């Protein structure tokens, strides 16, 4: 990498190895030292020195040119979630930076590690309402884990070192570094040291063993214990320990949408999905368990429904890395603060081998009801109209349950998450907390670039697709092998479903008069096909999955199909509706 050179003759600090360079060049050197070999972004006036420096390092830092900064940041998110690395995003000042904000907010609520570098006007112009000036620090503060403005080149190494450290450590999140253009141009003596700690920042709370003992005691005496797992398991690389824990104790386990894929779908203790459109048993039986063990999840309102009717009968154990999540929504009888891997490792030692066959049977009985009322028809429809579920079922078959699923937001997201089979972790990428339409296509591109050895299927709806459809051009330019599956129902389906159920079918502004997506895909030089009849579906998906390269497959699905089960807004989890 050649970043550290012999001491300069003129340097006063002869004990340090420094090299004279511009702030922009230093930034690229830092990317290399932080093992960043891919960045996503869009150039513009105030970030031009950085792009100029990148020009000399195209072999080592591959820059993916998006077509909109929102596209770039969702790509960085998809990349980060698929690769487990920090996603890096570049944008210019003003509108370039503001276009990142949705993605930053998404990464903040879904704990995705990002370093976003934004150009800023010259430091002499700050506060003068200069061309493309915007208070990026102020505007990004509510949605970043940390942010900092650099106004001289010698601040760049420390700011970037902290940025990478903070983005990936503890509970991960997005960091913004705003660098004035003069700081990018300025020459200084560069040296770099990675950040490994900050005195005011405690990324991992120290595990309190007495809490682990209390938790084990509750678990060992429980008759109907129930585990809820979230993304904390994946972020802590604790999939193995998690599985050991539930297998030893025999506890049925349900997932949040971000915890999905941490445990393989066909595991006998995987009882399914929590929340508003989750499975019947996991919701209903939340109010039957005696001990609720939440692992790396934050009791989002879409998971809990009405809190006053949520698991009131249960003792709650909460394994969590972020102290601010304890008692935030659901009070914990036994909070176990710490990294999920460490906490589970200690907990496994103290829990007794057990099985809960009768209790597990209750979940299976619920599954049977859900199968009869919902799932069978969704996966094997009796009508001629194609369902989203049957498309997902065939995708599972063609990939042997081994693909990365990326979804946008809405009905297709719920159906894809409910019915996709997973055989390994980090295989589900979706916008969970923020519910960002337009996420799916660019995140799919990022995932395909971050995990090039995997099959990446980006499932999108016709609404969300059109929010970031320009990124089809990025697919063509990067040759990212992303499979884009459009489930087209010519509606903003989830909003329409709510209008049907709760607004007397007053379909206000939810019907979409769509363009010809086939012509569009062709215009972007992407291999494409469209399916309207069931008889063509299997063959089309076979081609879609096996094609060596990007592929756009449009499937026309039922216009007014609904996603069930459903916990209506304001209802308790036990009030889940099957129809």
């Amino acid at each position, binding site marked *: 990498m050649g970043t550290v050179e012999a001491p300069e003759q003129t340097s006063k600090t002869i004990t340090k190895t420094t090299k004279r360079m511009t702030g922009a060049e230093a930034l690229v050197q830092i990317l290399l030292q932080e093992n960043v070999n891919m960045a996503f972004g869009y150039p513009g006036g105030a970030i031009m020195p950085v792009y100029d420096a990148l020009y000399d390092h195209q072999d080592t830092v591959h820059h993916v040119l998006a077509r909109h900064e929102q596209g770039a940041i969702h790509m960085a998110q998809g990349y980060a979630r698929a690769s487990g690395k920090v996603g890096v995003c570049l944008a210019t000042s003003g509108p370039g930076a503001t276009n990142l904000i949705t993605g930053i907010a998404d990464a903040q609520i879904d704990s995705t590690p990002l370093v976003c570098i934004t150009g800023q006007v010259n430091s002499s112009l700050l506060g003068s309402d200069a061309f493309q000036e915007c208070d990026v620090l102020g505007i990004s503060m509510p949605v970043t*884990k940390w942010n900092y403005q650099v106004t001289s080149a010698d601040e760049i190494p420390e700011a970037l070192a902290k940025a990478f450290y903070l983005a990936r450590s503890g509970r991960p999140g997005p960091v913004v570094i705003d660098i004035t253009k003069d700081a990018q141009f300025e020459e200084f003596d560069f040296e770099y040291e990675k950040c490994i700690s*900050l005195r*005011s920042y405690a990324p991992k709370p120290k595990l309190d063993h007495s809490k682990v003992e209390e938790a084990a005691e509750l678990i060992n005496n429980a008759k109907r214990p129930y585990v809820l797992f979230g993304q904390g398991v994946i972020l802590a690389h604790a999939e193995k320990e998690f599985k050991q824990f539930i297998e030893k104790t025999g506890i049925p386990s349900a997932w949040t949408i971000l915890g999905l894929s941490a445990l393989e779908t066909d595991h006998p203790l995987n009882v399914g999905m929590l929340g508003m459109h989750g499975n019947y048993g996991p919701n209903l039986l939340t109010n039957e368990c005696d001990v609720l063990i939440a692992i790396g999840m934050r009791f989002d309102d879409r998971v809990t429904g009405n809190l006053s009717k949520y698991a009131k009968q249960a003792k709650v154990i909460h394994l969590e890395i972020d*102290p*601010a999540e304890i008692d935030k929504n659901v009070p914990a009888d036994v909070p176990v603060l710490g990294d999920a891997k460490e906490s589970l490792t200690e907990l496994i030692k103290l829990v007794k081998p057990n099985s809960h066959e009768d209790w597990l049977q209750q979940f299976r009985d619920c599954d049977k009801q859900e199968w009869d009322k919902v799932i069978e028809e969704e996966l094997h429809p009796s009508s001629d109209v194609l369902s989203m579920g049957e498309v997902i079922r065939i995708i599972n078959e063609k990939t042997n349950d081994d693909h990365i699923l990326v979804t946008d937001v809405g009905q297709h997201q719920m159906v894809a998450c409910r019915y996709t089979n997973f055989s390994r972790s980090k295989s589900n990428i979706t916008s969970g907390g923020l519910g960002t339409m337009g996420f799916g296509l660019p995140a799919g591109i990022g995932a395909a670039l971050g995990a090039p050895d995997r099959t990446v299927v980006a499932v999108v709806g016709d609404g969300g697709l059109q929010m970031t459809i320009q990124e089809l051009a990025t697919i063509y330019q990067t040759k990212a092998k992303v499979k884009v599956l459009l489930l087209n129902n010519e509606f903003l389906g989830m909003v329409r479903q709510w209008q049907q159920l709760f607004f007397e079918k007053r379909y206000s502004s939810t019907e979409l008069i769509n363009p010809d997506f086939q012509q569009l895909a062709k215009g972007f030089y992407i291999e494409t096909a469209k399916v309207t009849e069931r008889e063509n579906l299997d063959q089309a998906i076979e081609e879609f999955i096996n094609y060596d390269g990007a592929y756009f497959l449009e499937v026309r699905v039922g216009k007014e199909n609904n996603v069930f089960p459903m916990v209506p807004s304001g209802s308790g989890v036990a009030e889940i509706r099957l129809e």
Partner: protein
Amino acid sequence: MESETQEFTITAYTENHVGLLHRLTIIFTKRKINIESLTTSESETEGIYRFTIAVTETEEQVIKVVKQIEKQVEVFKADYYTKKGVVQQELALYKIPTASLTNGIEVERIVREHNARFLTIEQNFVVIEKSGYKRETKALFDELKPFGINEFVRSGRVAVSRQKNGIGKDVEKILAKAAV
């Protein structure tokens, strides 16, 4: 836990970082909590700053806010106190016309009785200083009002905890550990 709103003082020990004030106030704005007063100063430890924030809220909400404050990267420690948990003061300045002094000893008597003092006496105005609880500075305000108050200002609350060692001691431990 009390679900009634009451007066709380929130204290945070922090690094001295540009923008941290904004980061902390966002936590209140996001929850639509009004900050009644906010004071920052260097703490007993050199280079470590402290925020003193006064709010009227439920204890449940204050606990959540304190956790969010402590979660910020540049915050070492944060805690909250009820009215009984702190020794607190506010400082008030009252500017009244000098003429009101020359028309008798009434103002001097009021100032003395309220344990206030004259900061400066100029040709056209005098400035009176009073520290105390809000009700005390308000009482003086009410008494001076008939003489004409040209300008009035009251500082934010400053407060120290009634524990022997506040969270400042915890911060010292963190700093000692970081220095190793």
